[in-house]
């Protein structure tokens, strides 16, 4: 019985190794192609770069396709990658920070006070979670332009507003589960509500803070349509910059495209490896609560 189990475990491990290879393969193929000349990518993406000219006799001459880091230099210049990168980092970090701060405050207030005001707010936030972005995309763009929110600072207002629904909902879910008595004791001892929130409630909410922060990071970092419609050409983030490589006239520079895809993936992998435990836990609690 135990031996049987061992054998089946070996077989399963082999299957899983094969599957993980399939999972990583697409990225490895892009990585491999990012070092090839742009003319040798679309036709034969599964062929390794060649490092020297080869005479294949009847089949003709195989040219050297390895171009070192040329695609990377090219791409970085073409789409001003580092500007886009800096902008993406700024919008994501600042956006997540204000979402976590303000929605946790709002969630605490509306869960701890019972009034028409907090009830109405709660149901509005829940309602907004259901509505797809397409419903508001045109009118939101117009409102944002009219209020001059069409820049990296202004778009933070939109992220807080559009992301408020889910975040308030998740924070309220957590606050409902913690006893109110500690907070009441703190207030009787002379804490102001603000002190009480930041000294007592916020530290207790840490698990939910990580969950909300991670879910919003994944959303804002990868978001394409909202920043594209609101800020467009003036302030491209990474997804917009990559989309512009395609958007040119005629043929795309496949070499630059491959290189930029790799540069776009690297920060995500670094982030993932650094906080893997929190990301997976955050995603699971987010799904179960939301």
């Amino acid at each position, binding site marked *: 019985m135990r031996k049987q189990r061992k054998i089946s475990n070996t077989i399963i491990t082999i299957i899983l190794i094969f599957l*993980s290879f399939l999972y990583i393969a697409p990225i490895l193929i892009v990585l491999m192609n990012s070092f090839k000349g742009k003319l040798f990518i679309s036709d034969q993406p599964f062929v390794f770069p060649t490092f020297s000219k080869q005479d294949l006799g009847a089949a003709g001459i195989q040219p050297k396709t390895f171009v070192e880091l040329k695609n990377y230099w090219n791409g970085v210049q073409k789409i001003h990658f580092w500007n886009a990168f800096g902008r993406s980092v700024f919008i994501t970090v600042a956006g997540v920070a204000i979402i976590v701060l303000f929605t946790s405050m709002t969630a605490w*207030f509306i869960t701890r006070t019972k009034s028409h005001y907090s009830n109405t707010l709660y149901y509005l936030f829940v309602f907004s979670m259901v509505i797809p972005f397409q419903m508001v995309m045109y009118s939101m763009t*117009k*409102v944002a332009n009219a209020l001059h929110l069409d820049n990296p600072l202004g778009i933070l207002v939109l992220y807080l507003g559009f992301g408020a629904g889910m975040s308030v909902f998740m924070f309220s879910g957590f606050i409902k589960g913690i006893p109110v008595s500690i907070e009441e004791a703190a207030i009787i001892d002379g804490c102001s509500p603000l002190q009480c929130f930041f000294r007592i409630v916020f530290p207790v909410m840490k698990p939910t803070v990580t969950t909300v922060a991670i879910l919003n990071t994944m959303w804002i970092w990868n978001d394409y349509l909202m920043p594209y419609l609101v800020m467009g050409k003036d302030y491209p983030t990474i997804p917009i910059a990559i989309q512009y490589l395609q958007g040119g006239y005629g043929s795309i520079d496949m070499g630059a495209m491959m290189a930029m895809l790799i540069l776009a993936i690297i920060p995500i992998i670094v982030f993932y490896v650094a906080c893997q435990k929190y990301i997976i836990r955050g995603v699971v609690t987010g799904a179960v609560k939301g």
Partner: protein
Amino acid sequence: MQKNLRRYWAVFTLPTLICFIIAFLIPFILGFGLSFAKFTTVMDAHFVGFSNYIKAFSGDDTFLPALLRTAVFTVACVVLINLLAFLFALLLTRKMRGTNFFRTVFFMPNLIGGIVLGYIWQLIFNGILAKYSLTLTSDGKYGIIGLIILMCWQMTGYMMVIYIAGLQSISPDLIEAAVIDGASPWQTLIHIKIPMVMPSITICMFMTLTNSFKLFDQNLSLTNGAPGDDSALVALDIYKTFYNRPGYEGVGQAKAVIFAVILAVIAIVQLRLTRSREVEA
């Protein structure tokens, strides 16, 4: 405490509320109103009744096909992703080495953004199809099948970690008792594991359902709907109606309202299902 806290309502709620009004409430009401208007800018809008809604279905030959296409695509995604994810979760909850590594690998694609994913797979699909002298845009079905594969690659890991959490929360005593009573692995799966993870199954089904139904970025970068609009899903069709067809802004907004209503109905069904289960439990 309530009285004390209530005096601070502005500090606690106003920043969020003001942004919410700007980013959601006003655009939502405005958008709903504009679905009954003909306009090219918000200022020149005039009321046209339900004609945008009628045009969305009759005067426009892309919306209904896109809806049907999206429905088929969504069903395929929901079934395939959940089957694969559940299978992976069963394999990775066995006692063996390396499960952490595999979980990490399977989950990773989920973090990569839709635009980047679309271009990665465009390269691969075009490379494969080139062997048959075809491209992704030779026929709409290639784009849709490609999107299904892409979605499986991206979302299976996400659903897998939810199923793993569900499977791990089953008490080992329960399974042990079943094994002692002579239950086969298949019987424990059908009679214990699946019923015990029903809540996870509901969550995953609805997450894959809404994510597939709302899919936009991947669709845009993989084929941009080509050839013609044959591989465009609803979200992309709405976008194209708004921005590529002058004079059709109102129709685009009407389509967006219909899209939102469908998603709201899905959400209500989900809420009902989870509520009724909570009462049982």
